[in-house]
């Protein structure tokens, strides 16, 4: 089976959980002998064609004003011949990628394709234009490359998915990692909402990352429940033993890590921290990340006069995240709205007990995590106090949490998705 998959970002240049999730999913599918053609915009593949299996959609210059389908067609052909960027990824290649087998004469490795991707798809003026340009190219790619299923991740790629479906007539699966309601609360962007709804309506199957999101899709977008399926995300098993960070202070460390925006509920973390701080000033808090609510959080912390125990670490990249988990004693994700939320799984993988909000999708798959309502600051403070003071509790969470998260494999998620693909071809 061949899948034409449209994404927006891919590690290491990621702005959120989407890239991480796509990466894990593609790996999981490849393990199960599914061919994936993964298309992302703005992949700089020209200078090194070893990144073959990733397709860039933005290397081709198109003069949109004089746009002519025939011309465009030629451009693509030329482009493909010229750059010899063959966008297939065979199962053997992928097997090599994940280190199971190395029989085939492929010449790319994980590092190379990781370094190649350059992300530019930030929400800007030109974003809408990029989305539609992406869709144009998608229709061409759909004719060029034989496939059985089209799979599109999040609204940015839905137009591409729809265009591809029109071109090849193959079934479309859209994957909802977040809805506009998660990103913007109730003040949604109508343009984005419309794209999302059209994409879901046009799709033969809709995959959501949690039951919470599934409910949103059914209730708010009016999508028939029988074609919406939940496939929970998983987490890549990564060896974090090599990463070591010396903890320079004796206090227990309670960590918030994420964008400091309304959606992530940083204010609830600060309020809970203050409640704990009043009870026991020998606990340290850290808020890592950046966002539009950062300054407000700084003022709040200063107002509570706890700046000497509450630090701001700024935006952390790559390995720094694991270094922070390495010295953390509790990880808190008090998200107001979180379709899934991969970061608690990453924390648990690093043996950090987690507290998550009940309003997060990840709470559906975790047993060994404290779950509180995001607005319940007292419960949050209780949980922090308990995990930092009662060793029995934190030990249990650490041990079973690790076990639990190790069982959340992309293989399982991939199998779910394959089942959904199969249901399409059978019908």
């Amino acid at each position, binding site marked *: 089976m061949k899948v034409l998959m449209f994404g927006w970002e891919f590690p290491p240049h990621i702005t959120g959980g989407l890239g991480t999730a796509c990466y894990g999913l593609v790996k999981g599918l490849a393990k199960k002998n599914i061919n994936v053609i993964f298309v992302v915009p703005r992949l700089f593949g020209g200078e090194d064609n070893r990144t073959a299996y990733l397709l860039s959609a933005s290397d081709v210059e198109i003069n949109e004003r004089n746009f002519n389908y025939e011309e465009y067609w030629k451009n693509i052909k030329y482009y493909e011949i010229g750059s010899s960027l063959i966008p297939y990824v065979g199962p053997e290649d992928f097997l090599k990628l994940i280190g199971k087998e190395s029989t085939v004469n492929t010449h790319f490795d994980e590092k190379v394709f990781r370094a190649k991707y350059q992300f530019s798809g930030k929400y800007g003026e030109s974003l809408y234009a990029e989305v539609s340009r992406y869709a144009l190219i998608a229709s061409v790619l759909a004719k060029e490359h034989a496939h059985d299923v089209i799979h599109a991740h999040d609204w940015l790629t839905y137009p591409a998915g729809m265009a591809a479906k029109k071109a090849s007539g193959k079934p479309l699966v859209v994957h909802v990692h977040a809805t506009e309601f998660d990103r913007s609360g109730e003040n949604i962007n109508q343009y984005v909402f419309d794209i999302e709804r059209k994409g879901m309506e046009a799709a033969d199957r809709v995959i959501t990352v949690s039951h919470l999101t599934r409910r949103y899709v059914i209730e708010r977008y009016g999508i028939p429940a029988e074609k919406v399926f939940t496939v929970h995300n998983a987490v890549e098993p990564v060896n974090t033993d090599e990463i070591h*960070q*010396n*903890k*320079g*202070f*004796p206090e227990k460390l309670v960590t918030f890590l994420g964008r400091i925006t309304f959606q992530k509920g940083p204010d609830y973390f600060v309020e809970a921290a203050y409640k704990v701080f009043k009870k*026991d*000033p*020998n606990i*340290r808090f*850290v808020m*890592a990340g950046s966002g539009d609510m*950062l*300054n407000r959080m*700084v*003022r709040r*912390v*200063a*107002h509570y*006069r*706890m*700046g*000497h*125990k509450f*630090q*701001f*670490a*700024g935006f952390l990249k790559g390995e*720094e995240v694991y*270094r*922070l988990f390495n010295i953390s004693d509790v990880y808190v994700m008090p998200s107001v709205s979180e379709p899934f939320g991969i970061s608690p799984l990453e924390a648990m993988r690093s043996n950090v007990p987690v507290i998550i909000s009940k309003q997060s999708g990840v709470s559906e798959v975790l047993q060994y995590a404290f779950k509180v309502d995001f607005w319940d600051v007292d419960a949050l403070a209780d949980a922090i106090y308990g995990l930092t003071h009662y060793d029995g509790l934190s030990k249990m969470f650490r041990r079973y949490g690790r076990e639990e998260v190790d069982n959340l494999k992309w293989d399982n998620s991939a199998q779910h998705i394959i089942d959904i693909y199969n249901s399409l071809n059978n019908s």
Partner: protein
Amino acid sequence: MRAICFYFQVHQPFRLRRYRFFEIGNNHYYFDDFANQSIMRKVAEKCYLPTNQLMYDLIQEYGTRFKIAYSISGTALDQFERYAPDVLESFKRLVNTGCVEILGETYSHSLSALKDKEEFFSQVRLHSEKVERLFGVKPTSFRNTELIYSDHIGQMVYEMGFNGQLTEGAKHILSWKSPNYLYCNALEPRLKLLLKNYQMSDDIAFRFSNRAWTEWPLTTEKYVDWLNAIDSRQEIVNLFMDYETFGEHQWAETGIFEFMRHLPKAVFAKSNYQFITPSEAIDLLDPVAPIHVPYPISWADEERDLTAWLGNDLQDDAFNALYKLLPKVRMTNDPQLYNDWLYLQTSDHFYYMCTKWFSDGDVHKYFNHYDTPYEAYINYMNVLSDFELRLNSLTGSEEITIQVPEKEKSKFKPSIIVQPGTELLYPEDVEVEKPKRKVAKRKLSTKTTKKSQTKKSTTKSKSKKSKG
């Protein structure tokens, strides 16, 4: 006779480097050596060296008729020693002429006068010692950080042995009065006060190069005319400004050096003013009245108050967190730690956290190497956290020892109600229980602090009284 009293402030802070969260407890070096050195070198070339040369030339030309005063913060002196010994030498040469007075101030250009008398005294002492060691003179007049002054601060300054202090001629303090007289402290009349004439001072320090100013360009003739226009009975014009005015705030291209070079000549030729130092003014002039300053004033911003350094949550949290460590710092005897303690108190760190960008935003931005006050706060608190950890490693974490008895309290004990008069409710024949209660009381009292003990003893005596 009428007098002009020049005082120039020389100060450089030890700027903090970007200190990251991961470094807390792992890295104990806080200062941005590169920035501190390069800024010091830049200011030395643009301001300190040429201006010192200019002042030296003027003194050579006019002899004892031209006199000025400097206040050089301890951090600036430390930076001279480290990065610009040539500047230090040129200051020594100036002091040796006998026409230059050095004022006393806090070593680290700190706000300690607002917080702790003992710390304030020790920093002033440290500064005086350093000045004496380097220049061979002992400061007799005092200038507090940013000219911060209040009745109370003046009293402390007199207690330290200074007989005069310089401060701002703030409008809201003077109202109809003129700054051009000698005043005295309201609580301690023996402490004389020299008040900055901010109009005449800021004409040079801030407005000199401003082309939008109606009086631009400012010439020495015009300036002397203004000096002459001051009522002839007024005795002294105090021109207080940052030394960096010359060549740094006002670039050489603006003609500021030429202005200064020719000012004495114009003054001597066209007016009856003469130049004197602050301590001479204090000896020569009689105070006309006491000045009441119940709340601290400063020379900063439109408000002339403390809001450039203290007042918003960021500043107050940082300031309180810093001085909460004071008792522990006193317990230690580590020279490196004490040095950091001094440098962390420099007022500039709090200035960077100022959020009032409206009235004096431009001035603030000029002195600030952080993008936002939030960044300044985050960085400072990271450093302070590490400093506290070092302190705790030497003294032990006091907070923990305080908490131990509190935790013990929560152990289960049969409750004893100690309320005045309850003894009267006990029947006379239940004698057996009384010693028990006494024992329990004693146990309780050993675990409470002194305050509650005294409280209890008063309640006891009260109950006894009510018994009687």
